[in-house]
């Protein structure tokens, strides 16, 4: 039931109402609304129950194992929230003078430095609001760089076929043509195909390493040399940074620009559409083009770096500097971990993925790249189950919900048929991983003995199997009964 449907004329929650009426005497009469906004009239207890029940219908990292591959659904330590909500940070006005925000600016400057160090880049901008905007920033800077060099013949961005869908979308948004590079049988970029594709028309390449296939791109240095020799730049999609945090640095691999998803790797709120944070790191040659503002430090005071000293900047991407609250949480997370802790993130993310892969393999499941070590995630393919039993990856995924596990990512990457992309993250215990394996084994037995249990799953959730075509085509998202 929607909260609007619980509305009863005249019912209010007076304890929550403002204590004073606002002074509206300086607002012109024609700008004041004359009708009452279409909000529900409910009691405080109704509101509490309604939203508590809604939250209980939700799968979340706070309630369930959430091995959604490529999304890094790990635990957000409560301390990050608590400290980011200290009144001094929370009540800071974004337009306050620099001298009154030195504490916040110092944290942001430190975060820039930490992200530089951990990625091996020359400089970092934190203004992009999320990963997709970070990607846009990166490719827009590649474009600005070529334009500044008078190099207007570069029209193509190379994207491996294992890439996230946002990569080609970003290249197109920035006015480039996308050329797809195939993957070889081992899960690496097909180097011969890449050599054929690289040329004077190449503006750059967008790579994720480790790739979405859950393996580390082993010939990254050769790839970087090939692209650089042709005059192109390398873009690093930071989606899978969790696997290499503190171990290998994209800057050292030869990348010119990288975006990071703080809401994945740096454990800030994630899912439900944000808010996110997609800082971008650059090599020396892209520094002049970075979006603003950036926090500077003159040895005494922290200050905003603006267009006055960066005339070649691609501009601004958010009203102030990204999502301040999310950046604060990432800063606190990084400080709590320290250098040593960063290494352990990568160690355990990789160990957990390889443990899970080994146990599922032993249990009879097929992994997509059995010869390769997993990074922070790996792929199980249910192609055999589909052929022999008519059971698909989607059926497995839906049945996992009945066992109280969020499903792994299904049908991505597109290269692997009937795939589950599984990312346990470093924050799960061995017991939790074992329980997931047991559930997979039981579902396999059900697939063989009572397949209807899978076909009709989920059985225990507030909604049953959705008609995905209708759900995608007939969106019903807005309450339309408010105008009574």
């Amino acid at each position, binding site marked *: 039931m929607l909260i609007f449907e619980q509305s009863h004329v005249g019912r209010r929650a007076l304890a929550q109402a403002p204590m004073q009426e606002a002074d509206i005497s300086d607002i012109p009469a024609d700008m004041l609304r004359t009708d009452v906004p279409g909000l529900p009239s409910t009691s405080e207890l109704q509101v509490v129950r309604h939203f508590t029940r809604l939250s209980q219908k939700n799968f979340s990292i706070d309630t369930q194992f959430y091995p959604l591959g490529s999304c890094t659904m790990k635990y957000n330590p409560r301390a990050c929230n608590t400290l980011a909500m200290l009144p001094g940070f929370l009540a800071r006005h974004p337009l306050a003078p620099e001298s009154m925000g030195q504490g916040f600016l110092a944290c942001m400057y430190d975060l820039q430095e930490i992200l530089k160090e951990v990625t091996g880049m020359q400089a970092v901008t934190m203004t992009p609001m999320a990963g997709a905007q970070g990607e846009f920033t990166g490719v827009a800077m590649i474009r600005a760089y070529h334009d500044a060099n008078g190099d207007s013949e570069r029209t193509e961005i190379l994207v491996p076929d294992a890439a996230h*869908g946002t990569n080609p979308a970003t290249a197109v948004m920035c006015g480039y043509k*996308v050329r797809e590079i195939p993957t070889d049988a081992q899960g690496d970029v097909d180097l011969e195909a890449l050599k054929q594709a690289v040329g004077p028309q190449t503006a750059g390449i967008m790579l994720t390493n480790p790739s979405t296939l859950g393996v580390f791109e082993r010939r990254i240095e050769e790839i970087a040399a090939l692209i650089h020799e042709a005059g192109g730049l390398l873009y690093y999609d930071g989606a899978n940074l969790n696997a290499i945090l503190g171990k290998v640095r994209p800057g050292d691999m030869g990348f010119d620009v990288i975006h990071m998803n703080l809401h994945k790797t740096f454990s800030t709120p994630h899912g439900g559409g944000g808010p996110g944070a997609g800082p971008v790191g650059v090599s020396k040659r892209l520094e002049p083009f970075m979006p603003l503002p950036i926090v500077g430090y003159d040895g005494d005071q922290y200050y905003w770096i603006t267009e006055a000293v960066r005339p070649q900047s691609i501009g601004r991407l958010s009203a102030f500097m990204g999502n301040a609250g999310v950046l604060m949480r990432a800063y606190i997370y990084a400080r709590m971990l320290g250098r040593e802790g960063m290494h352990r993130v990568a160690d355990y993310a990789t160990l957990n993925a390889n443990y899970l892969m080994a146990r599922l393999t032993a249990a009879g499941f097929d992994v997509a790249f059995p010869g390769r070590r997993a990074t922070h995630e790996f792929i199980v393919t249910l192609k055999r189950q589909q052929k022999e039993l008519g059971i698909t990856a989607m059926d497995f995924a839906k049945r996992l919900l009945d066992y109280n596990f969020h499903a792994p990512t*299904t*049908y*991505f990457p*597109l290269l692997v*048929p009937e795939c589950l992309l599984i990312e346990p993250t470093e924050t799960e215990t061995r017991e939790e991983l074992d329980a997931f394996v047991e559930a997979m084994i039981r579902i396999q037995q059900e697939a063989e003995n009572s397949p209807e249990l899978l076909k009709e799953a989920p059985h225990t959730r507030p909604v049953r199997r959705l008609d*995905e*075509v209708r759900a*995608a*085509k007939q969106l019903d998202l807005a309450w339309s009964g408010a105008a009574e």
Partner: protein
Amino acid sequence: MSNIPVELKYAKTHEWARTNDDGSVTVGISDTAQDQLGDMVFIEVPEVGATVTAEEACAVVESVKAASDVYAPVGGKIVEVNEGLADSPETVNNDAYGEGWIFRIEPSDAGELGALMDADGYTGFLAAEDH
């Protein structure tokens, strides 16, 4: 076994091409392709009058699983698109080789058709992909 009509030509990217009497080429995606993609929710067709080159992405089929590019099997000018797919994308699932066609090209070089596979070739290609 998938339905692979013998009179059509096939691309490695799973498009089919039918040469019409007037020399134009009708293009859609194969039965195998629609089967693997699953239920279609949206088909983005190219613009009539657009010029495309062979192997250029010029349409998008979006299913509940994924959005995939459809590549032009031959270069030329788009002379007609299947407007009906806007309202009924499921036609691609129900009749991939008939009502589910996506666009029609006037080829600039009909010789490019020679680079495509025949039905036997495509059958073998699918078997190899399915190793």
